[in-house]
Structure formats: structure tokens, C-alpha cells
């Protein structure tokens, strides 16, 4: 394999590995810009993956699976909202609790329903999202450089991949060009300003969490019924936390979120590729080094070496009217 082929293959898997990160990080973006920290992204993704796999298997339709994933993710989001908005609980505690619930419940229910050690039965045909071959691939394949990129990176992905990339400008537009976006950004910075302007802080934050739920559902569905063909124990494997790191790394802005996710996806792809291979002069590099890089980069960022990351000012603080 020459170097260009390797490059194309790594790029292709970068895209595949970035998609759940992009959905999840955007999910976190809506929640956190509204002032609700969401450490429960991991749990939402996992629960949504499980629900999507179950429903896709039972119905034979990937779309129903997707809807199921979105549904359960919204439920998780609303529980988080009920704890942290309505009851003004601690957002971190609530998020962590939801992660535990998702991790435990998926295995228990999976085992009870399908008896395959927590896995769901494999999906075939319409029960999962198949790759879409874009027109002109055969023709383009012959073109040097651009051809392989088009055929292997741009074409041949499933519908959710394209939706993820569409969700980025859409999120930007919602956040910066609509009334909902203006209010959402305001409520994450100074909820009292929103309240005194005659807008309900709680309702606004619940609506933000609904968006978070929908996007979290997409992320989970992608894992179980697009990238894989079944639910596997703990298949989110920390991606929710990586997405959270990407969100911080991107300073809570939609377009940088996409690039941060692509970067972290790329590191993951390189880690997979490097498994068991040795670099000349250095020797075999432990794959954990690449896996740790997203966290290391985020820590460096938070320490203030790459600009300053300002989280939304009201983040993590339940809103209480002052006398």
C-alpha cells in the first residue's frame, strides 16, 4: 500500500469515527450554551444506541430505530432537565447518574430480552443505514488524487454522516440567526436578564434540552445501526466524554466543534491504524498514546495554552430568582 492509499483510508475512517462525536458535541453545545452542563452525553448516546438497535431489529426499519434512539435520548434529557432545572439539583451528579443508568440498564435489558450476553441480534438489510454511493464514483475513480478521495471519503457513507455535516451549519444558523438562538445564548450567560425580559428561563432551557435529546439520539443510532449492525455492551466507550472534550476544545462554537471532532476522530483513526505497526527509528508506539491525545489536548487548552476557553457564564448554576 503506498502512502496515499494509507492517507485515504485513514481519512475515510476519520469521517466514520467523527460522526458520533459531531452529533454528541452539538448535542452538548445546545445544552451547555443554555447553561446546563451535560456530563450525561455518554449515557444518552449509549441508551439511544441500545434503543435504536432494539427497535430496528424488531421493526426491520432503520428509520424506526432512529426514532427510538431519539425518543430515549429525549427522555434522558428531560430527566436531566427535571433534576437540574425544575428541582435545581446538581447537574454533574444528575449527568453521572444517567450515565450509570444507561450503562447498567442496556446490559440488563439486552440480556433479558435477547440472551446474547447483552448484545442485540445482528441487523441486516433495511434495518440499518447502508452506505450511499454517490453518482459518478466509477467514473471519478480513474481521476488521480481527487478520484480516490471522492470514492472513499466523500462517497460511500450512510445518510446519517451527511446529516451530521448538515447539522453543523444548521446549528450555527439556529444559534446566531434565530430568536431561539439569541435567547438560548442569553440564558446560558445571564438567566436573570432573560427572566426580566419576560421570557421563561425554565421553558427555554427545557427546549434547549429537547434539541440536545434529538442530537444525542442521532449519535446513538449512528453507533448501533449505521456504523455497526448491532448493539454491543458499552459501545459508546467514552465517546461522550471525548465529545465533551471536543466541545470545550472548540470553545462552545458550532463550526470549531466540527473541526475539533474531526481532529479527535483523526487521532482515533491513526490509533487504529498504528495498532501493531512500528514507526521507523521509534519502534512500536502504544496505541493508548493516541487514545489519550484528545484528553491531553483538552487539558492543555484548559490550562490556557491555546487561547482561553470561556464556558457559558451561567453554566452549572441553577437559576433562582433573587429577592
Amino acid at each position, binding site marked *: 500500500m503506498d502512502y496515499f492509499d494509507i492517507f485515504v483510508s485513514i481519512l475515510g475512517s476519520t469521517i466514520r469515527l467523527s460522526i458520533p462525536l459531531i452529533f454528541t458535541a452539538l448535542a452538548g453545545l445546545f445544552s451547555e450554551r443554555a447553561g446546563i452542563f451535560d456530563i450525561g452525553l455518554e449515557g444518552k448516546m449509549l441508551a439511544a444506541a441500545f434503543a435504536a438497535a432494539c427497535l430496528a431489529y424488531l421493526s426491520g426499519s432503520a428509520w424506526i430505530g432512529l426514532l427510538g434512539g431519539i425518543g430515549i435520548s429525549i427522555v434522558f434529557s428531560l430527566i436531566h432537565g427535571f433534576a437540574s432545572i425544575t428541582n435545581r439539583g446538581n447537574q454533574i451528579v444528575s449527568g453521572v447518574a444517567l450515565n450509570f443508568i444507561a450503562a447498567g440498564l442496556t446490559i440488563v435489558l439486552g440480556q433479558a430480552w435477547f440472551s446474547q450476553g447483552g448484545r442485540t441480534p445482528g441487523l441486516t438489510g433495511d434495518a440499518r443505514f447502508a452506505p450511499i454511493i454517490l453518482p459518478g464514483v466509477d467514473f471519478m475513480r480513474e481521476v488521480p488524487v481527487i478520484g480516490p478521495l471522492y470514492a472513499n471519503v466523500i462517497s460511500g457513507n450512510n445518510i446519517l454522516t451527511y446529516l451530521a455535516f448538515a447539522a453543523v451549519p444548521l446549528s450555527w444558523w439556529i444559534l446566531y440567526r434565530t430568536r431561539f438562538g439569541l435567547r438560548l445564548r442569553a440564558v446560558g450567560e445571564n438567566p436573570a436578564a432573560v427572566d*426580566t425580559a419576560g421570557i421563561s428561563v425554565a421553558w427555554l432551557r427545557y427546549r434547549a434540552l429537547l434539541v440536545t435529546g434529538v442530537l444525542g439520539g442521532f449519535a446513538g443510532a449512528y453507533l448501533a445501526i449505521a456504523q455497526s449492525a448491532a448493539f454491543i455492551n458499552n459501545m459508546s466507550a467514552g465517546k461522550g466524554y471525548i465529545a465533551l472534550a471536543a466541545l470545550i476544545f472548540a470553545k462552545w462554537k458550532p463550526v470549531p466543534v466540527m473541526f475539533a471532532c474531526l481532529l479527535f476522530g483523526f487521532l482515533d483513526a491513526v490509533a487504529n491504524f498504528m495498532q501493531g505497526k512500528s514507526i521507523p527509528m521509534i519502534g512500536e508506539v502504544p496505541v493508548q498514546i493516541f487514545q489519550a491525545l484528545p484528553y491531553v489536548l483538552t487539558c492543555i487548552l484548559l490550562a490556557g495554552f491555546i487561547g482561553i476557553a470561556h464556558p457559558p457564564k451561567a453554566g452549572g448554576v441553577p437559576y433562582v430568582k433573587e429577592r
Partner: protein
Amino acid sequence: MRPNRIPNLPRIRKERLRLTPHPAIELAGIDKSFGAVHANKNINLTVAKGSIHGIIGENGAGKSTLMSILYGFYQADRGEIRIDGKPVTIRDSQTAISSGIGMVHQHFMLVENFTVLENVMLGAEGGQLLAKGVAGARKELKRLETEYGLDVDPDAVIEELPVGKQQRVEILKALYRGAEILILDEPTGVLTPAEADHLFRILKVLRDQGKTILLITHKLREIMAITDEVSVMRRGEMVATRKTAETTVEELAELMVGRRVLLRVEKGEAQPGKVLLSVKNLTVKDSRGVTMVDDVSFDVREGEILGIAGVAGNGQSELLEAIAGIRKPTSGEILIDGQPVAGLDPARLRQIGLAHIPEDRHHMGLVLKFEEYENSVLGYHREPRYGRGALLDLDAIRKDAEEKIAKYDIRPPNPRLKTANFSGGNQQKIVVAREIERDPKMLIIGQPTRGVDIGAIEFIHRRIVEMRDAQKAVLLVSVELDEIRSLSDRIIVMFAGKVVGEKTPDAGEQALGLMMAGIAA
């Protein structure tokens, strides 16, 4: 084109209002309790249209509660609100806004990283998409600007504006929503004298254009300077309403407190002795590396009060913290009794005899969740009279606390009460008692009476003067120019981290104001 969701067209409304004979606001029998606290007792109030009406009272007198009821933050338990002669039920801020009431809060309700335009539009965007409303909002802002002299760049980001302008944005927000009645809650607390004058000019223009203004303040001078009528609240009751022209500062103070109050601090000539605290070429940078105190030098002698005047944020806080050992100076010297002390920690400085009453009692002076007696020894708890080794002698501490409570008239007189449950004035007395009763050699004080009511102010001021008369050195920082002028023997003014000049306390307010604004030296 005007955005379509803004309630009331101001112009049309104004014409209509002039024709109607009703008062702008009538409150009848407003009553409100929070649990056992009876915050508003049967309040009646009539505010004439096109007037500036002052509401004055001590902290906890119920002013803020009353205004919160008017703005829909709380609902009254009983009573009626009539706006423009019509009874209204104000359920939330939204109904207050659509009844033509606008509020300028003490702590601005602005989103700091938004532009002026975004802040003004928030809640009155004129449609689902922002693009539609923006052009209309710009035009409307321009109109308000020319009509009332409220010039602010609509594209400026709030956090980059000086506070005076931020406040103008708050006023613009209210006017943009068609407010006919403007409530201002302690509006001058954060302003320079020049900015306050500018605000008053704006308020007079607004009044002359037919707006009604409710001004809530505890500063008697402002009431006298700008209001047409004034109502006094005390312990949840409306005790009097006067025409401003027919009353005096003394009468109002007496009405507020319920007894005669000494507004002037009585003190004799200072008898300055030797230099006790000496600051030489002190420079302090904050955590971002910005120079906050820039090459500052001064001396404080025994038996004198040196006042540092200046608008908040001009380096006074950092200066105090550097002297108190909380912040490390970047360069320069601090000498106490000729000994260099820069860089020593606060515990060591206390042993040397430096007492510190910090600017912000909530963040630095007290642990609000502690009981009163715990706070009354905080920082001095290692002293042998409060315990031995790792153990505290709680009996001794409580007895000590009780003595201070009696001497400083701290209410309620209960050392076991959680500190958060004391009023601002009593909390401040806890801090003052702790620091002064230690009999230090010198005292540094920041904002001794911020958020403290008149009775307690009088008490704290007297203590400070007593310290001076006992030949202690006192360094006083306050943003209240009146306080600086009435207490200090000498005044230095800080602007942008530098000392811009020194004056005697009889220097005119205007001269000091110009120095505080960095215009004159």
C-alpha cells in the same frame, strides 16, 4: 419599520397619557410576607404622571420587595395596583412590560458578551428570525438616542462599555419596550459623580417628555437633587410622603431611622504622630498580567485617617489586598513601622498589628454558613485565649462573641445564629467588631458601609474615628465620596491604578470628581 411584537407605541401612548387625569401608579393596601417576615405592610402610594418620585428607606425596609411586586417578580398577598387609573394584575415581568413598566436593576440585567443591540432586542426580537427585527431595532434605537440624549453604539459589546453606558443600555431596553414608567433601583451606586450627573440629566429629560420615574435609593442627597416627591419606607411600612421642596435631609433621615440621626461625623482635629504605614512605588498586577496598581506611594501616620477616593475598579481593591497580604505585589515596598512587610501572609500581618476590614464581607470577611461566634474569631482563632493546640475553647469564643454583640449592638443578639441570617449592617458590625476589638496598631478598611443602613453607618463611622483618636493609623477606601470626605483627614485620589493627587477633605466635590474621572490632577 417597527418590530411588530413590541407592546405599546411610545409616541401615541404619550399623547394619550397627557390627556388622562389619572396618576401613573397607585398602590392600595399592598401587603406581602415571606414566611415570618412581613416585608410590606399595607402600602399605599400614589405617583403623579410625569414626575420623579423617590423611594427612600434603609436596607430591609421593603423598598426592593415593593418594586419587585410592581415589576412582577412577586405577587402581593393583598392589595391593588392601578396603572394609569386601571387596576392591573402583574403576574410576571411580561405583564409588567406590557403595562408600560420598565425596570433598571441595581445589578444590570445584561448579557455581557452580547452587543448593545442584542441586549435591547432580547425578549422583543420582532419575529422568529433575527434578521427581520434588526433593522427596525436599529432605527428605533437611533430615535430614542436623539429624543433622550442616550448615545450608545449599538454594536458595542457590553463588557467593553463603562458602567455608565451599560446603565444607559438598561434604560434603552426599557424605553424600547415602550416603558412609560421607569423604576431605577439604586442607580448611582456604581457611577462616578460625573456619570451620576449625566444620569440625572437623562432622567430629567425623560420626565419632561412625560415619563414617570421611580427612584429607589438610600442616598438622601440624590433625593434632594432630583426628585419632585419622596416617600419614606421603614420596616415594611410607608411612613411618609413629602414634596421634596418642602422637606429637609434631616427630616427624611429621621423618618427613615425612626429617631434623630447625626448625618455629619463629629470629630476633632487629627493629631498625627509618626508614620506607621508606608507604601513606596507599589505596583500590583492581576492574574491576567494587567497592571492594576501603578507605582503608588503614600504614608499613613498614627492618629490620622487617610482616605482613598476613586471609582470602583481603579486599583483600590488590589492596593488593599496587597497591603493586607492577600495579593503579592509585583514590585515596590510596604513598610509597617519601618519594617518591610510586602509578601507576608495575612496571619503574620495580623500578629504585627494590622487589622483588615475587607471590601466584600461576603467573599472575604465572613463565612456566611458559619454561626456568628465562629465568624467573630475568624483569623484570630489561633490565639491562646481561644484554645490550645488543635482544640478550640468554644466556651471562651462564645463568651467573647457575646461581649462583642453587646458592645456593637449586633441584632439579633444570638451568637449561635447562622451569619447569613443577619442583615447587611449587622454582618458588617460582626466584621468591624472582630477587627477593631483586637486593638490593632493600624486598620485598613474597604467600603466600610456598603449595603449598610443609616443607623449602622453612624455607628461604624464613630468607631473608625475612635480608632483614629486612639492614635491608630487608618487607611480608608470607599467609592462613596461623601464618606471619604466626612471621615478622612487627608484624601488621595486613584485613577487607572495611579494616585492622581492629594486633597484636604474640604476640597470641593467637583474638584474631587474631576480627579476621580481622570480629567484633573
